[in-house]
């Protein structure tokens, strides 16, 4: 096992030990899962098992919470995550076509990751940039006033 993995695990355990000193540690579960996802990029069975044992929370309960919130990834994510906004304004301005073009370009569906692990595709509701509709967000960067063609060009720029 490489040391990087151990470091992440240590950080997660340290984080959990800190929450256990609080009065209702079990109520910190969502925060712990956030931390785990921040460290690993997604929530694996192994990570959830680790949380279960350390926090003394049944795995079924953790699974229930992890599947309830869209934010949590249950599979490894690509290097870049593309969020296609399907909020009302974007949708009216053709976000559906942008999404289709992105799917066509990456040959994956929403929620999936490309085989080269470069991109994960997710849909989202309003990103608060309706003036620029339709928009997509790649990681933390927003791209607005898109056409299907422009969206594809943006993605290709990440491939270089």
């Amino acid at each position, binding site marked *: 096992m490489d040391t990087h993995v151990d470091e992440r695990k240590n950080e997660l355990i340290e984080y959990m030990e800190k929450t256990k000193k609080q009065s209702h540690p079990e109520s910190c579960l969502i925060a712990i899962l956030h931390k785990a996802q921040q460290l690993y990029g997604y929530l694996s069975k192994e990570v959830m098992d680790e949380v279960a044992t350390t926090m*003394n929370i*049944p795995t*079924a*309960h953790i*699974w229930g919470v992890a599947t309830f919130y869209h934010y949590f990834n249950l599979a490894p994510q690509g290097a870049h995550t593309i969020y296609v906004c399907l909020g009302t304004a974007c949708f009216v301005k053709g976000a559906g076509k942008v999404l289709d073009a992105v799917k066509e370009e990456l040959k994956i569906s929403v929620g999936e990751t490309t085989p080269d692990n470069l991109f994960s595709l997710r849909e989202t509701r309003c990103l608060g940039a309706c003036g620029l509709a339709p928009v997509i967000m790649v990681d933390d960067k927003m791209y607005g006033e898109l056409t299907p063609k422009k969206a594809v060009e943006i993605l290709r720029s990440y491939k270089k």
Partner: protein
Amino acid sequence: MRVTEMITIYINNKPYEVSSGQTIMQAADSVGFRIPRLCYHPKLSIEGACRVCIVEVEGIRNYVASCAYPITPGMKIKTNSRELRQARRDIVELILDNHPQDCHTCERDGICELQRLAYSMGIRHRHFEGERKHYEKDLSSSSVIRDPDKCILCGRCVRICSEIQKVNALRYAHRGFKTVVMPAYDLPFAESVCTACGQCINVCPTAAFVEKNYTQELFDKLQDSALIKVAQIAPSVRAAIGEAFGLGPGRAMEKESAAAMRRLGFDYVFDTQFGADLTIMEEASEFLERIQSNGKLPMITSCSSAWMKCMEQFYPDLIENVSTCKSPMSMTGALTKTFFAEKIKADPARIFSVAIMCCTAKKYEAARPELRVNDLAAVDLVVTTREFAWMVKSAGIDFLHLQGEEFDAPLGLSSGAGTIFGVTGGVMEAAIRTAYELYTGDTLIDIEVEDIRGFAGIKEGKVMMDGREIRVAVAHGLGNACNLLDLVRKEPDRYHFIEIMGCPGGCIGGGGQPYAGSNSIPLDQECLKKRAEALYGLDRDKTIRRSHENPEIQKLYREYLGRPLSPLSHKLLHTHYRPKEPRGIIPQEIKAR
């Protein structure tokens, strides 16, 4: 201390005096209004999910869920207005909308709470036609089948599994329309922490949880003339089977059951209670040996299969404390394929050994590799009380008018001690009756041990044996067992001997017992009490009430086993357990969402 006072509330325009501090539903129940309900169960936390129990309260704009809403003095409640009836009917229709329309081919046809509710709402058409979920059935477990298509998300299974059993195998996963009750990681049931106790089946209002059904296979085997068909029946089955034929709870139908087994086509009809007597001989001897040789204490009973799986996953540190005795079912099965086979000079491979059990976990137990004898399964097939009752009906046997018949020798005669195995505290009581006399050589005068009878979650008792104090404890239901064992982990010297049964009430509350009828609820306390009384009654009526006085047991030791804990006893009647994955986790207090 909070004092409850009587207050006046108005239900459907008439005043009623009821105790304060109740919910609307409880208050209405107390004066004879049974508000329709679905997700509510008196032993579980309030979910308020189904909205079937809504009522109208004057001054409140929306209908309220009566299971969750407290009464206040002068409250004016309507339970049956035209608008309310309509709203309630719509709610049930919407539940039905996402439910398969296959009642007539469903296993719970005729004994389904949802069906009964739909009928009582007056639903005669299906008005809504919307999107319907579809999931694969989970057939992986040897005991419990999960069918999410039939699930209406009432959450009773989730709550009983976490609140009463503390196993926490089930939770809601995903959200909204896509919500499904499932084990962690959507793994097959067989790979989860599920103990196979089957309580989810007992409380499920539909057929989202049912036992793995072996009735067709058994009917086929019963036709096979090359096989010697042998059956045994657990004590608790006879205490409950009458309910499956419309009788009230508490009717002991021991000899009728034996007669029905013969009519189904079994060649030999044995009694698991014989195995229970044998278990007591071995277990009491093992206990005395541990006492005398400073062995590992407290010793914990090992009869309950759900408890055994629970122990391996949740309490592997206590494995050495668990008695090495197999369960009465597995002992009877082991002797069927050895002692009995030799006696009738038959090839054990030709014997088809069937157990009729109040239990779903026994299906799992029967399949355990460590319980095989001479490379044969001790028990080839297990059917529950429900399956047995169905087979009797399906075969056209008039159960209620059968003349009683006796069980067959040599594995059919039992003492009263074997009978009370079916109720919480019974194994301990039976063990005390024998251990006391084996240890002291005196006769135990007061053989009914009141301290460990009844339905308290954890019961404690003391027995003086030749001036030596033996402290015992009894827990029923895995949640109570967990509480007791947490105590044992903290105070290992507190007890000498512990009985644990996986189901509430012991085997009489097993996961394979008849479904609650139209006027009762699953796991109703009164029903459990009556089933217990049926077994205590059978015990009282017997001349032989101590396992070691059972003449067939004495003969078995004389002719075959030698003595308790002999090498042959060890080979056939004892086993060992190992820690199992996935490891179970018992949380402090987490409310199931």
